[in-house]
């Protein structure tokens, strides 16, 4: 069982899966802009666990904001932001 898991981790890049949208850690500069734009605190953003496979892969730290670019049938492309938190 364990062997299979480890093999998967090594070989499979989740970002190549068609259901996984594009993820990107945004810079401090962009983060500030985002928070000013929405007049929000970091804690007001939607969250994502640091244990999330995508976050692990990106190697994001707690407090980082991840930009997710999803495709949308009505808007074409839409951006979503989530802040990384620890469990």
């Amino acid at each position, binding site marked *: 069982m364990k062997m299979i898991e480890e093999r998967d981790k090594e070989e499979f890049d989740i970002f190549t899966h068609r259901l996984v949208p594009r993820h990107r850690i945004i810079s401090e500069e962009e983060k500030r802009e985002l928070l000013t734009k929405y007049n*929000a605190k970091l*804690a*007001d953003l939607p969250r994502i666990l640091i244990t999330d496979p995508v976050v692990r892969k990106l190697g994001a730290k707690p407090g980082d904001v991840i930009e997710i670019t999803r495709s*949308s049938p*009505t*808007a074409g492309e*839409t951006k*979503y932001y989530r802040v990384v938190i620890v469990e």
Partner: protein
Amino acid sequence: MEQEICREKIAGIEFRMLSPEMIKKMAVVKITSSELYDADGYPTEGGLMDPRMGSIDPALRCRTCGGSINDCPGHFGYIELAYPVIHVEYVPLIYNFLRCTCRKCGRILMSDEECEKWKAKILKAESKIRRKYIVGQIINKLKNVKKCPHCHTIQEKIKLEKPSTFYEGNKQLTPIDVRERLEKVPDQDCILLGLDPNVGRPEWAVLTLLPIPPPSMRPTITLETGQRSEDDLTHKLSDIIRNNERLYENLNAGAPEVIIEDLWELLQYHVTTYFNNTIAQIPVARHRSGRPLKTLAQRIRGKDGIFRKHLAGKRVNFCARTVISPDPFIGIDEVGVPLEIAMELTVPERVNELNIEQMKKYIENAENYPCALYVVTPDNKRKRVTKETKELILKELAPGYIVERQLQDGDIVLFNRQPSLHKISIIAHRVKVLPYRSFRINVCATIPYNADFDGDEMNLHVPQTEEARAEAEILMSVRQHILTPRYGLPIIGCIQDYVLGCYLLTQPDTLVEEDEAQKILYFMGIYDMPEPDVKKDGKRYYSGKLLFSCSLPKVNYEDKNLSCRKCEKCKLEKCEYGAYVKIRNGKLISGCIDAKLIAPEKGFLIQKIVNDLGMKEAYDFIQKVSMLGILFLQYHGSSIYISDTDLPPEAIKEIKEEIRRGVEKVDRLIEIYRKGELEAYPGKTLEETFELMAMMELNRTRNKVAQIVEKYISSPNIPTLQMARSGARGSLSNLASMAACVGQQNLRGLRIRRGYKERTLPHFERGDLSAAARGFITHGYKAGLTPIEFFFHSIVGRDSVMDTSLRTPRSGYLQRRLVNALQDLKVSYDLSVRDSENKIVQFIYGEDGLDPTFHKIVEGVINELRAST
């Protein structure tokens, strides 16, 4: 401003256990007597109604604070329990403490180093939920520890016998034992088991004192007969006190242990049911009449508890409820209000220089409709207007007074039908006062409410301030809700007769006599009418198209309607089926009008008018077109006959042949399947594949039959067919069911297979897979079903009735949970969706920031949307 009003801000509220000291400190009296009143009917001192706990008699003042009923909040008392009892709601906490602490030294069953480790973890936890989770982990770890790491005592297993008896091994622990052990637990260990020592001690969960709530919390009701009736809580408390007294007496008299134990257990029972009367394994405490007592937990919990009944739900005045009935001759945004109701409901109007004469007329008219019922003076005195008082009131009436006049034509009211599932379940209408005793509503406005007239009742509310009236009119009126926020198609439109009327009117050869047309146009509110455009036999006629054009605003529209046969090359305006609708500048040029243009949740023409010309034009159009449709239908006449379903002999022959072929094909399929020559579809078993193919074949047969029926009943004058073609009611498939063949009966998406062993009925052989044996009905309703077919039909009928009646409450509860979870999400001005803490849920509403009410969705997408729900 804010500084002046708001001196202190509440940061939070924390609920704690009451300590015995606290119970004593907040009490003003020790209750010692189970007597409520003495022989003279006055409350006894030291009884449950002790006047020092606050008075509930308006004539008496509180003996503690001197306040009357209105300003004395009541004061607690307490009783001393002869023996301690366990608080049921804290049984889980006690259980955890007993399992996880040493029986001898009271320390937690964990070494000091580990204690520090876990304590750090708990203190670091950022949320209460998280803390609870960690505590759960600790308890899981400790509950089976055999030996105390501090004093090396061997631990016995603690068992909990619900609801509140603890055993250590086989020995029962009395509440006294339990309390002793909890007392031994040091403060520093409490936090590891989820109890902050600054907040409470575990032994407080075993009660030695019981606080007695003041009578204002459990008031006595005096019945008309003068008899006093006590509150459920008072009954329960007096049970507790009486029992406590007996226990004391027996203890002092040195009674045998068995008796003491029995009384103790009984006291435990009474205290338990006092807190919560729905504890499992415990008989419910009942009133003398057999009604279960409503004790503390029942006051708070559930549908009748304070949260759902009094805090989340409110009752209102200025409302009315009665049966609804249809009235096609009132406006779509009107509601017919019975005179009796209009005379009872009032609208407050502030008197000013401009309306004072009108207001005086209302007062002058006292006791006749319409009049003023009350007048409120500027110093807030309310005066009833009667024939006797009107002269006086008329004299003093001046600007600044408020006159409460009866409901009148044109007033804005809110109209509602439960279940209120979406925002258009409450719409603002204008009042139209009518005789008789039911609310009248235009049939076009029933769809948003999902109302019909088989006895439905609806509620009506009268807004009481200018702001409320303005909001109702601007935000909630019928005109604002022509389009549904679901996908932007009209929710208000023409149904049934209206659709059929318009369909028949716009047939190419329809002519309307001049005088008839004038009547119709008059009802539509059109007073300058066009010249008649057709002359025939020296008489002047209006063509149906011209008449229909009268209802149209200046709109352009071009599309195919329901009659479209999807020819390879569209002939556009020259379509022989009238399927190409073309409207130029408000004139109907070609095609006939059907459900696709004007019906609710279809109505593309209405959508076009709203988008191009606005809500008002669309509202006027629906109003006019519905009047036109129904009046023309009245003039034209339409009724259905059994003979609508008559077929010529050759058609019957053809249908029989088609059905025979279909059934035979299934038989051949069975053969192939039995031989094992069938190839399974991907992801399906062989059997599933066979069933699927058989179903497909039989459905195809059935559709073919419907086509044959249509081919032979193609006289356009058959009303059943007209209804189906216009989309007013019924379908071709329904017609075919009556005329020729009902077709396959499906049970949960499959052919019928249940019943006896390997067969549906004993009339078939085991394993018979043929069409007839699995619920295929070859006859039509008119010819009649065979008994076996009838049986299959009944199976499916019963199943669908059961299904709907079982599904409704489930989906209702699901809806309730969803609404509760989502109710305070809102779209902010920056288009982000936020919750009540202003946290972001979506960065742009719906990913695109668009209001679906004004989406323009093409037909295909709509069908897809509908199919998915």
